């Protein structure tokens, strides 16, 4: 006979006594436009403390006063101290309201939540990063981490597809990475423009030609669902192992901590098991409609 069967016997499992549903207030330090519809916000806690530590690939729930709350990946450096960074594309109500924030305004932040890119697996091997559009943002922390400790990793290849040349994110950084960090950077665009002498076409085309030879390499993919599926298939065709490919998934999220039920993806709960998955874990779901 247990002491109180009707009741539940729980110590408050609430991390550090903080309710996971109540945001911490951060102030906007700076907002930088990346392109016509994308910007990067730098945030610091209003209480003067440090931003929460995070791992590459994790996300925060960002709350904007009275408008709503959305999941956004962290796009800054996970190793170096510095402000919390998010790169956001304006698509709807909350993201547009965020674009109107000014330095000094505050927003609510919950997190970091979710799984991360397995950067530890890349120690001593090659890393292939395949990104589409805003999908480069969640992968930037990986690049920071690798370039921050370049000798620990093998060759690094970044294959990046954007819709148009002016939509290419982090342009200066891309140049710098390609130039000085012993990193292969290949960028393609869906539609060329005058002055663009780079690649035109989808990112899978880059994969086909990427300097990929060492087995044991890991691939990290982030972008629209269909782009991730085709990229993974292309990588498999090039002889990569299923269990060395990772993708980051996206579904509606209201809580970010596995309680609200919104981000289910088959049996997965993306905010908890994901957003980063090993490809073979979700392969069977990726091609299905309306999952």
């Amino acid at each position, binding site marked *: 006979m247990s002491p109180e069967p*009707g*009741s539940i016997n729980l110590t408050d499992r609430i991390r550090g006594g903080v309710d*996971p549903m109540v945001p911490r207030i951060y102030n906007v330090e700076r907002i930088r436009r990346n392109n016509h519809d994308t910007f990067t916000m730098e945030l610091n806690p209003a209480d003067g403390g440090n931003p929460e530590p995070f791992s590459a690939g994790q996300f925060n729930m960002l709350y904007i006063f009275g408008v709503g709350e959305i999941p956004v990946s962290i796009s800054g450096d996970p190793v170096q101290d510095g402000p919390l960074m998010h790169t956001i594309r304006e698509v709807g109500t909350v993201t547009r309201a965020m674009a109107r924030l000014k330095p000094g305004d505050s927003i609510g932040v919950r997190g970091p939540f979710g799984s991360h890119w397995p950067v530890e697996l890349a120690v001593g091997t090659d890393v292939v990063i395949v990104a589409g559009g805003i999908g480069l943002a969640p992968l930037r922390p990986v690049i920071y981490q690798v370039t921050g400790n370049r000798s620990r990793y093998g060759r690094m290849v970044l294959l990046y597809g954007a819709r148009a040349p002016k939509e290419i994110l982090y342009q200066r950084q891309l140049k710098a990475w390609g130039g000085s960090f012993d990193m292969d950077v290949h960028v393609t665009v869906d539609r060329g423009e005058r002055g663009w002498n780079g690649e035109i076409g989808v990112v899978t085309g880059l994969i086909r030609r990427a300097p990929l030879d060492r087995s044991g390499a890991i691939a990290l993919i982030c972008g629209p669902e269909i782009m991730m599926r085709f990229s993974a298939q292309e990588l498999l065709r090039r002889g990569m192992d299923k269990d060395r490919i990772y993708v980051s998934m996206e579904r509606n999220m209201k809580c970010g901590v596995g309680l*609200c039920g919104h981000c289910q993806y088959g049996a997965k709960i993306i905010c908890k098991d994901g957003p980063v998955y090993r490809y073979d874990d979700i392969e069977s779901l990726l091609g299905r409609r309306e999952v």
Partner: protein
Amino acid sequence: MFILEPDGFEKILDSLREKGYRITGPKLRDGAIVLDTIDSAASLPRGVRDHQGPGRYRLEETGDDSWFSYTLGSDSWKKLFFHPIKPLFKTTRDGGLLQIEPEPPREGLKALIGVRPCELQALAIQDKVLAEGEFVDRHYVASRKGTFIVAVNCTVPGGTCFCVSMGTGPVADRGYDISLTELGSNGATRFVARAGSPHGEELLAAASSGKAGESDLQLEAELLEAAAGNMGRSLDVEGLAAALAESGDHPRWEEVAERCQACTNCTMACPTCYCHTVEDSTDLTGSVADRTRVWDSCFTADHSYLHGGSVRETRGARYRQWLTHKLSSWHDQFGGSGCTGCGRCITWCPVGIDITEEAQAVRGTARG
């Protein structure tokens, strides 16, 4: 094992009330059994039974003095812990600066009277989801603490019940403080009572009219066995979860879409469904914003909304999400079925869609 007479029952309620428990139990309202605050055993429904079928619920007077001849109504205990509408916090804004004032979790002693075995399982499932993971819902935890449960074993199963298939009833084997089996009626209702906790034991010792005799236990066993054989429905769960996991493209989903309203009644009535969403509102001056959590359902378009549209546009995909979650992916996520066999989703579906029938249809022809 004790014998409890009606006045002993009342005594238990009295002593719970004296200790400050708020008592909730079945009540008759608008032609159905609902769960509401009760003042005394006298406000419990007597001499009624329900007839439940797909999309149909009717009460009938039995003409006797039976206490618990009915089964479940549309609401479940989850509303007491996982509140349909729950303020989360209030934000005030001064210039650009925000201040957040979280809603304090509310604790309080609650006694639940007449919890059925399948509902004990439902509580256990919600505990698992909302109170036992890495992150917990603190409002749920707070209100779930200090709950005293008087369970009632089912002797008259309902027309849509299938707890036997789900292994959750008709007898409560744990999770209660006191469990009761009603013996006989005809003006002579008595209960076989068991304690499931020291607190339950203490109350029973003071209120019962003695130990249950051999013949009482014999009668109880017969009643419960008969009930187990009288389920309105059944579901073969052997291999079901695996079969459903592979059923993504089954044509049955499109067929059910023609009937399903995507009205959410099944999920709202289900005692284990926990989906919720949050709503933000501001006052006219724009200085105060409220955030509220409300029950949501995988049947709404917003549930799977990503900028540009819903992932699950069609009613078929929404129904598939619901059914496969309940009976299949729940196992992967929480180590057991999300269904207790209570039958609510069948009865309260306004167009009588039957989970047992749909699951069977999908599984019967599922491709491996």
